[in-house]
């Protein structure tokens, strides 16, 4: 393929710049910053697309801040089949591609930033490293490109897609070195596992130690079991001693005291009596007698008795007690009678005053009797009749009724007033009518006056009705007078009636008072109580007599009871005293029989001590015999009476010592049980197989380590085999690339260096063969820069041929790559390039005028100057 035209519409410094390019070789000349590198980049961009593919990141898009618009290139490419290919690349937000066959316009949508089909399988990096070179890049082959070139130097022909051997070797090397290294350096997997295995072995050691601890604990537990059995046995012995010792001590004590006591005290002579101190008995007897002295004295005194008067008073006690309330009643009734009598006198005076007023003189008892008996109803009837008779001439104006003329008078005066009011209407008759009516009224007034002053005669039967009573003059002249008489009589009769009732009550009271006085008098007389004085005085005397009689009666009763008690006391004291006396007699007899040498209390004290001991021993014996151990221990030598109690094993000291031993034994037993329990828990909670578990992990770590080591050895062996195979393969199949490169180098160096060799691995690299001797093989490092440039140029030329085998041959771009070559070799290079340009398009880019001129001559090129 060959670029025939390149149009940089917008591409860095190249703006709307079209280049018509020759098909074989082109010389691009320009000063610095004229766009040589941009031109080289434009060729690459046409083939591979924008790099980077984003406008924001592309350095040329940013070159002028985007002022020139989107980057855009167009090229016309002549392919090896002779067909033209128009390509347009534009960097919008992302790179876009359009292409079309021939000269036709672009049709269809834009494609992405993809490489042209003719460069597929050849990476941009490889293109840059092999096809498009500048001086500084000539000797550099790094990273993936180096690997690819390495691979290219191995002309393998396998139908299967194989990974690059260098990549495979690197992978193997990294893999086995990550597992283990002979120099033991680095954090390899084997080192990690070694550390893990060490750690697990340490844990295994700890597990073993733990198991030993458990085993020791188990052994200790077994020992503790024996120890516990022994301690239990000891404790049982001590418990038995603890339980038996007091009993044995008591048994020994009983025997010893019994032996010391000798024969027991015999109190049979006491009979039913208790053994007591004779002095005490005598004292008690004396006390009894002293107690009898007072009741005897009581009984010796004369008994108290009631006299006859006192008996009579006490017999009449009910009457006397009743007389008290009667006296009070009597007093109040006497006071009531006095008041009644005062009322009686007042009524008598009032009745006399009323009758006297009626009669107009001092009334006599006869008048009062007459007045009391008068029939007042009849008088009232007479009065009514009389008053009716006085108002009888009803139709007469002058009749006895003065109201009628008064009515007439009022009517007349009213009529006169009416006429006077109507005078203007009546005219001349008015005054007459007024006068007439007034006159008539005056007449009526006079008639009323006359009627009211006219006298009326008394009814004739009135005198009969007032028989025995002669009212004062004038009272009977009018009905009104009669009415006053009737009213006075009525009041007098009411007063007289009350008077009579008072008189009756007074008489009843007087009778009651008399009856009561007589009764009191009779009672006083019967009891020979002085009768002088009023009822109350007599009753007071009666009550006093009764009080005194009763006091006397009480003294008599008290005396009787005291005597009775004295008698009873004497009866109670006497048997005791007699019993004490009998007991004293018996005790003295017994004491005399037991302690003939002593007497009294001294004898008693001695006997009593012996007696207490006898009883105590009897109780002790009974107590001991109740214990089932008695029969077994009764004849035990340890409890013999003759044994020294201080040496006995049941002495407090011995018992205390044994208690101490027992406590210690119990404590030891408790501790042993506790430890035994601890160990039991320990063993119960033990998960077991600690060592086996730990050994599992040790084994796992060791297995992992062995597996890792085996894996490393396997990978290292494989690495070694692959390296060896590669070497053999390289030896067997001289790479075509090196052969071609060697041929180029021989031409460029005019036969000084004829062959290029390449080897991988340590000490490997590029070698050249030739030199002064003709078969010298040298590593290229010490050669001159110019020669190195020539070697790498030739190597690339060889690679170009190899890479383009069976595909479109891509152009070769050399940017001032010949600067360090000497003239002769540069000329050889020009010659070689001229030859190459017949197979592929060659671009020579330079900023050196002399290079440009030289190339123009050598290659017969037309210079394309970028600054034009």
């Amino acid at each position, binding site marked *: 393929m060959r670029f025939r035209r390149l149009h940089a519409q917008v591409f860095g410094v190249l703006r709307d710049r079209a280049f018509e390019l020759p098909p074989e070789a082109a010389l691009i000349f320009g000063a610095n910053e004229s766009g040589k590198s941009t031109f080289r980049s434009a060729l690459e961009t046409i083939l591979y697309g924008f790099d980077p593919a984003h406008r924001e990141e592309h350095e040329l898009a940013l070159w002028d801040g985007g002022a020139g618009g989107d980057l855009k290139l167009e090229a016309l490419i002549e392919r090896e089949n002779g067909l033209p290919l128009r390509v347009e690349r534009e960097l919008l937000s992302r790179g876009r591609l359009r292409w079309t066959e021939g000269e036709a316009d672009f049709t269809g949508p834009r494609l992405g930033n993809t490489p042209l089909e003719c460069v597929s399988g050849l990476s941009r990096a490889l293109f840059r490293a092999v096809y498009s070179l500048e001086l500084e890049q000539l000797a550099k082959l790094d990273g993936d490109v180096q690997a690819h070139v390495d691979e290219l130097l191995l002309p393998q022909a396998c139908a299967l897609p194989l990974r690059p051997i260098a990549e495979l070797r690197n992978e193997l090397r990294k893999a086995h070195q990550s597992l283990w290294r002979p120099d033991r350096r680095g954090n390899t997997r084997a080192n990690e596992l070694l550390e893990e295995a060490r750690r697990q072995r340490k844990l295994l050691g700890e597990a073993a130690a733990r198991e030993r601890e458990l085993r020791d*604990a188990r052994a200790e537990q077994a020992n503790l079991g024996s120890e516990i059995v022994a301690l239990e046995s000891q404790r049982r012995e001590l418990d038995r001693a603890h339980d038996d010792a007091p009993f044995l001590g008591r048994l020994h004590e009983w025997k010893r005291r019994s032996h010391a006591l000798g024969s027991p005290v015999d109190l049979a002579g006491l009979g039913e009596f208790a053994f007591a101190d004779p002095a005490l008995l005598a004292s008690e007897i004396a006390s009894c007698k002293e107690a009898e002295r007072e009741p005897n004295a009581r009984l010796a005194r004369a008994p108290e008795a009631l006299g006859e008067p006192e008996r009579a008073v006490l017999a009449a006690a009910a009457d006397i007690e009743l007389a008290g309330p009667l006296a009070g009643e009597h007093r109040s009734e006497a006071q009531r009678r006095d008041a009644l009598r005062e009322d009686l006198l007042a009524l008598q005076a009032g009745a006399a005053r009323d009758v006297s007023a009626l009669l107009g003189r001092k009334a006599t008892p006869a008048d009062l009797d007459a007045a009391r008996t008068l029939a007042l109803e009849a008088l009232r009837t007479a009065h009514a009749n009389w008053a009716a008779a006085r108002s009888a001439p009803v139709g007469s104006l002058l009749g006895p009724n003065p109201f009628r003329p008064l009515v007439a008078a009022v009517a007349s005066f009213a009529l006169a007033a009416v006429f006077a009011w109507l005078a203007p209407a009546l005219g001349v008759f008015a005054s007459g009518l007024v006068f007439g009516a007034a006159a008539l009224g005056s007449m009526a007034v006079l008639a009323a006056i006359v009627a009211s002053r006219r006298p009326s005669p008394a009814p004739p039967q009135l005198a009969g009705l007032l028989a025995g009573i002669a009212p004062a003059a004038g009272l009977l002249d009018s009905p009104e007078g009669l009415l006053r008489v009737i009213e006075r009589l009525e009041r007098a009769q009411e007063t007289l009636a009350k008077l009579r009732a008072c008189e009756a009550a007074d008489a009843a009271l007087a009778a009651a008072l008399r009856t009561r006085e007589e009764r009191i008098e009779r009672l006083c007389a019967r009891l020979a109580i002085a009768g002088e004085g009023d009822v109350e005085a007599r009753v007071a005397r009666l009550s006093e007599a009764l009080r005194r009689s009763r006091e006397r009666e009480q003294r008599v009763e008290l005396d009787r009871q005291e005597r009775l008690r004295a008698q009873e006391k004497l009866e109670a004291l006497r048997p005791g005293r007699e019993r004490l006396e009998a007991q004293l007699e018996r005790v003295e007899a017994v004491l005399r029989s037991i302690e003939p040498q002593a007497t009294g209390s001294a004898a008693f004290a001695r006997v009593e001590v012996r007696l207490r001991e006898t009883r105590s021993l009897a109780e002790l014996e009974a107590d001991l015999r109740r214990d089932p151990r008695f029969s077994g221990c009764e004849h035990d030598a340890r409890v013999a009476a003759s044994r020294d109690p201080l040496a006995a094993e049941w002495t407090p000291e011995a018992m205390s010592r044994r208690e101490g031993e027992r406590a210690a034994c119990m404590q030891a037993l408790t501790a042993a049980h506790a430890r035994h329990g601890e160990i039991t828990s320990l063993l119960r909670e033990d998960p*077991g197989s600690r060592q086996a578990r730990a050994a599992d992990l040790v084994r796992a770590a060791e297995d992992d380590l062995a597996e890792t080591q085996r894996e490393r050895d396997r990978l290292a062996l494989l690495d070694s085999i692959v390296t060896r195979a590669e070497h053999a393969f390289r030896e067997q199949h001289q790479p075509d690339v090196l052969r071609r490169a060697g041929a180029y180098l021989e031409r460029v160096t005019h036969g000084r260096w004829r062959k290029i060799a390449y080897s991988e691995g340590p000490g490997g690299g590029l070698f050249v063969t030739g030199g002064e001797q003709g078969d010298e093989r040298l590593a290229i490092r010490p050669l001159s820069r110019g020669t190195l440039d020539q070697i790498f140029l030739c190597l690339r030329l060889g690679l170009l041929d190899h890479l383009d085998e069976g595909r479109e041959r891509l152009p070769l771009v050399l940017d001032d790559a010949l600067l360090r070559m000497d003239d002769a070799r540069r000329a050889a290079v020009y010659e070689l390039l001229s030859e190459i340009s017949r197979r592929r398009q060659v671009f020579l880019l330079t900023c050196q005028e002399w290079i440009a001129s030289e190339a123009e001559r050598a290659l017969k090129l037309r210079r394309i100057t970028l600054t034009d």
Partner: protein
Amino acid sequence: MSFRFLHLADLHLETHFGGREGTRENLREATHAAFARAVDYAIEHQLHALLAAGDLFDDPILSVRTELFFAGQLKRLAQAGVWFLAACGNHDPGGASFRTADLGVENERVRFFRGPAPELLRVTDRDGAPVGAVIGAGHASDQESANLAAAFPHVPGSLPVVGLLHTSVESAKSAADHDRYAPSTRSDFERRPYAYWALGHIHLRQQAVPGLPVHYPGNLQGRNPRETGAKGGLVVEAFAGASAEPVFVRFARVRWERVPVRGLPASASFDELASSLARCIDAQPRESDERLALRLELEGETPLASRLRSRGELEPLAEDLAARTGALEVQLRTQRVALPLDRKLLRESPSVLAEALALIERAGSDDALLAELAPAELALAVDAGAARLAYLRELLAGLPEELTLRGVEAEAT
């Protein structure tokens, strides 16, 4: 009168296990449980004795708990009137310096044969009547090299005679997989017409000598993928003057199996592969009270070959399979898994890979070349000479497929 007993061997009670932690614990527990079940069986069936032919323990240093467990089981047997007779093996030697010498579990019905000299013991029933004679001998050390069986005497009498020994019968299957301790041969057993030989050491259940009543019951509980199948003990009813025929009784609750898996799915789907493997596991017969521990040996071509070589890929797959199938343990072996490639083309095309494959092939038969190719220093410490060469050959074995997997672009498959 017959002598009825249970023949066990190789209990390996305190074994160190591999695998995941859960599996290890389950296996440890299963070993104890299997022994307890055997004891239950002996008591329940009123056997006269339980004979253990060596290797009661895996490690001479027993944990206290295991020791207590063991003592407890022996106590149960003694209380039920069942004899417990054990011959010491290489894992539980009876020498004075070893743990078995001082277990402290012996009583009138518990007896250990600790030394190489055969001892005769008459076994009685619960009423004290003799029912059989057991002649036993044990390993005094953990590396007994003498033929102990040769010293077993001829025992005349009317009781059935049983020999009890931990020995490696040379003609027994898989004898080569076990250390050659107390080796014995067919002639040792032919000369003694015992009713039964209760042997231990070989973990594979078998009649050790064809035509003779010489039996290995296998170990009580499989411990790893090499010890496959149902595990338990042999119930024997022996009569005087006749060869006894044992009957196998399973006691182990965990069964190891190795399952070859061929015909891997052609797709590159891990899930499909997992489903296919799960079906294989589910198809394995098992008892209702059994749990399976499986090693799946994958073989064949699959696009997943590269991933199946990676431990990081295998372990999650194995755990997934265990979870899917309820298996106690699933292990995957993928050394025989390969990419689907035209290997002839690969070998015949000129390439470094083909050269390397040819080199591997040559090194397989050329010790000098193998030694030359070997790394100067090996990570795994092996002795120089034959051992080193053997190791290198072992390494060489998987390299062709490894190289193919690594050297061919994965996308090619």
